[in-house]
């Protein structure tokens, strides 16, 4: 997939005031695209502008070279996506989006079941259950499955990790990483460390300006300068001696431990 979602001279305003100015760059397939910044930096407004719900912007949003027509081409979830549930079974909830797009009746259930499976929920166990019976992590996965089942090219998520425990966050981040191979996944987050891989793309909004980084560049800068972005202290501390390494590991304890072991072995060999 080579198509990209491109921002061209995009300035997003809110209440007449520009919150993110002159953004140029692109979101692509094959990696998570993170939108990071402090509260009020314009992350959510930019997300809504891409979705077509926020119209206070100038410049262009292009998909595959043409102006992005949002209708039917994106899914959007906010914090707490399980608040969208209105059906009495998980199956109905996931099927809803397909019914609204008027898919043939014979295709709806198999496709919904297959998609649920993809999100790690066995249809045998979950399909007939009431969404409110599920655990927090399961609810979140059902909600995200229900929002993305129509497989639009663009998936927009506003703080999808909010309210999940560490294991739930990690599992969800892995699923979204997988999803990024088939969709352009754009995630607004205050916890980039859970998602950051060296090949992630980061659009960092600060003081009205947007800067683009690879995950590796972002990690490196945040490790050097805590005022730039506050990554967890333990990560910055562990990474400080390895600032010259070609790429830093993602922010999780296992990856950091194996990275340090590898770097030490390499140093011993030298």
């Amino acid at each position, binding site marked *: 997939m080579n198509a990209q979602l491109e921002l061209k001279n995009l300035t997003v305003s809110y*209440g*007449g005031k520009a919150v993110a100015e002159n953004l140029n760059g692109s979101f692509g397939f094959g990696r998570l695209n993170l939108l990071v910044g402090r509260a009020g930096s314009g992350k959510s407004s930019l997300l*809504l502008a891409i*979705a077509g*719900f926020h119209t206070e912007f100038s410049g262009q949003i292009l998909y595959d070279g043409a102006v992005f027509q949002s209708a*039917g081409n*994106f*899914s*959007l*979830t*906010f914090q707490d*996506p399980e*608040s*969208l*549930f*209105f059906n009495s079974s998980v199956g109905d909830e996931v099927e*809803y*989006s397909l*019914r*609204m*797009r008027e898919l043939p009746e014979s295709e709806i259930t198999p496709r919904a079941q297959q998609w649920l499976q993809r999100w790690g929920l066995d249809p045998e166990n979950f399909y007939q259950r009431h969404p409110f019976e599920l655990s927090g992590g399961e609810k979140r996965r059902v909600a995200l499955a*229900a*929002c993305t089942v*129509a497989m639009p090219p663009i998936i*927009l998520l506003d703080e999808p990790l909010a309210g999940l425990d560490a294991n739930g966050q990690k599992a969800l981040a892995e699923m979204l990483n997988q999803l990024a191979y088939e969709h352009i996944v754009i995630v607004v987050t205050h916890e980039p460390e859970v998602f950051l891989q060296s090949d992630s793309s980061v659009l960092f909004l600060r003081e009205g300006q947007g800067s683009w980084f690879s995950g590796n560049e972002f990690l490196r800068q945040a490790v050097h300068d805590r005022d730039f972005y506050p990554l967890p202290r333990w990560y910055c501390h562990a990474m400080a001696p390895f600032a010259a390494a070609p790429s830093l590991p993602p922010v999780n304890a296992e990856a950091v431990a194996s990275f340090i072991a590898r770097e030490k072995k390499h140093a011993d060999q030298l």
Partner: protein
Amino acid sequence: MQISYKPGNSFLYSLNPLIKGGLCFVLIMFFSLNGLQLPAMAGSLVALLLFAALGRLPLADLLLSIRRIWFLLVIVGLVQGFRGNGFEVVPALESMARILGVFIAAGCYLTVSPQSELMFFWETIFRPLRLLGLPARELALVMVIAVRFLPVMLSEIDRIRMAQIARGARLGKGGFFSSAAALMPLMIPTLAQAIIRGEELAEAMEARGYRVSGNRTRYHRFGIGFFDIPAGLAALAVAAIAVWSRMP
């Protein structure tokens, strides 16, 4: 843009909460019940906005917040417009002006009234109910919480609406029954959220020591100030115009 209390120091802010509430009530009744023609209604709306501007209220925020009720305005306009033979513009615009007037008057009131004043107003209004053995203070609290949560719920509805549209929902499309059914993806989650929020608020208030009891003191005390008398007279004048416009 949410309508909620925004600190300020104009004459509107300094009014006694009873006068403020009374003035708002009269304005709401005026826009709901008056028998004025469209030009006079439009003039009343402009006068209300001028009044708000004089009181140094954030007019831009108030006007932007009208976006939240555009759907209601359109529905009311259509229903009223089609009441006669074919579509008539004047009754449609008149009914929309009424809704706008009520919305702006209530918006001004909420912008200049902190929670303590709202509570004081509702408590005073409900005081006679104590004679019937009803819990006036608790009823007042229910009213204040309902009013305070309105902007939160509106923004919640907006979020749910956008997310459901992204899922393919066609909210409010089709005939009466089919459009009511199509609104389910909006209505059920909104109701569920309201119940969840209510429960959380009740727990939070109990955790902070709130109990149903008549033995509570008042932190804020409100007197009659310089602008209260002219404001009270203005309220009487507005009420008189509404009654006069309805006279045969």
